[in-house]
């Protein structure tokens, strides 16, 4: 078997409600897969199924023996007031194989190497809350990387971050992928993330479509996935999804005279305002 993991007709449910039905999916070494779908479509459940923390009620999951998986949770689920320094958070991954609480010198060296690799050198002694959004996300990627995984799973790694942070995080993930790591991530961002990935899985409790973005980002597939009509344009050979609201929101009377105003950049003045 060449696949790292293979899900064959698997079904999961929480209580009586099925969350995933008859899902077939395989991940090969070095593959980069994005999972898209509406809220409640089972994206996180599918990620946990790949991670091996859920047992299916039907179907089977076949994984390579001793497959090391790194998991990066949604940052929204992190308790930012937990007393944990960056180095402590990263070293959590070294959870087994040592009886004493303190890390070995080799573990410390490895943690520093991973922090440096992800541009977090010198931040090991800082509390995780003190970092920027992109740095915080990279801390959890570093924690996953310390497991030396073959497969990296990321649950909405760019949700709730600005465009610059999104680029920063995606750049790191792409670099890791180029070094041979298989990556599976979930995302809501069709234009900013999904359209740029090599392979997509459109999910709504079952796999609606799977393939390259140009093949699956189509009005038909998106309507089946999201249950709403979406227009797809092409820009430079890439699909661009356009949302249409049923009603246009008109400006109020007070806002009516508003016209676009662009503050000109003053020459030679690049300082932040005081």
């Amino acid at each position, binding site marked *: 078997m060449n696949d790292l993991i293979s899900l064959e007709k698997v079904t999961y449910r929480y209580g009586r409600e099925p969350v995933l039905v008859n899902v077939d999916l395989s991940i090969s070494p070095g593959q980069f897969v994005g999972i898209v779908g509406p809220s409640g479509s089972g994206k996180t459940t599918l990620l*946990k199924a790949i*991670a*091996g*923390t859920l047992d299916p009620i039907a179907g089977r999951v076949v994984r390579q023996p001793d497959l090391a*998986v790194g*998991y990066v*949770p949604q940052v929204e*689920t*992190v*308790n930012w007031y*937990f*007393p*944990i*320094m960056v180095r*402590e*958070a990263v070293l*959590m*991954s*070294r*959870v*087994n194989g*040592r*009886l*004493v*609480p303190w890390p070995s010198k080799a573990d410390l060296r490895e943690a520093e190497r991973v922090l440096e690799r992800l541009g977090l050198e010198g931040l090991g002694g800082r*509390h995780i809350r003190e970092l920027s959004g992109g740095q915080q996300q990279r801390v959890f990627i570093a*924690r996953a990387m310390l*497991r030396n995984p073959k497969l990296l*799973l990321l649950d909405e790694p760019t949700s709730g971050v600005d465009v610059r942070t999104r680029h920063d995080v995606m750049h790191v993930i792409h670099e890791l992928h180029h070094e041979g790591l298989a990556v599976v991530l979930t995302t809501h961002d069709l234009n900013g993330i999904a359209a740029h990935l090599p392979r997509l899985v459109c999910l709504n409790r079952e796999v609606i479509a799977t393939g390259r973005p140009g093949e699956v980002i189509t009005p038909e597939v998106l309507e089946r996935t999201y249950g709403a009509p979406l227009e797809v344009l092409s820009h430079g050979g890439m699909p661009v999804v356009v949302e249409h609201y049923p009603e246009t929101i008109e400006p109020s009377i007070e806002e009516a005279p508003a016209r676009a105003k662009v503050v000109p950049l003053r020459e030679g003045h690049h300082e932040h305002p*005081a």
Partner: protein
Amino acid sequence: MSTLLEPFDYGFFRHAILVATLAGALCGLIGVYVVLRGMSYIGHGLSHAIFGGAVASYVVGVNVIVGAGVWAFVSALMINKVARRRTIGADAAIGTITTASFAVGLILVSTYRSFVVNFDALLFGNVLGVTQADVWLVAGVGMFAGVVVFLGYRQLLFSTFDPEVAEVSGVNTGRADMLLAITLAAILASTMNVLGVTLIAAVLVIPPVTARLLTDSFSRMLWISVGVGTVCGFAGVYLSYYLDWASGPAVVVTAAAVFAVAYVVSSFRRRLPAAAADAHVG
């Protein structure tokens, strides 16, 4: 000097202060996990639940401390089980099970009026009831808790901070939860004589929150919390001798005073960098 050492002339006091110091350290240790897991209320609830267990054990002729410990452990498992049904919140599960257990204890006390044991001591703590056997019991529980936290440090930390990812990373979070519940039950049952079941929860919560005010590091929080618990256990019982207070309230009041000092210190520390930054900008 001899006046200061006078209480140590009495065997009961030596036992009591030793047990209170160990109890403070133990509560400080396990309290870190209790607080960081958002289980402060479970500590409060379980300490009440063990009262029911203690009285019921006395009625059926079982060792009170063993019975109370088993009762607390079973209560913790029941809370966990009920809370996993998402329709009932953990706080409601704790409120229902532990208050019912406390009520069972009160009913038994009012029904069997021929008790030779004074259960007021269990409620509020009493240094006079501490024996050499209690010292050994708390020391044994302390050894057990120390070994659990030492050997399970990484697993407990990971499963406290991020249980879902911990599971992906090979941590048996169910076993970690179980170990924590057993340790908590053992600590509550073995220290109830001196601290009192109505007051243990405070000793479980105040040292860790005091430590949290003083550090952002988990490992340092653990050490500071144990230190605060140890000092408060010792100082509280020592003061209770001179002020003629019940030992439990004396330990809690001492811990609350330490918390107040830490709160003021941490407020100043937080303002200092802000003031320095303002001065820099200005």
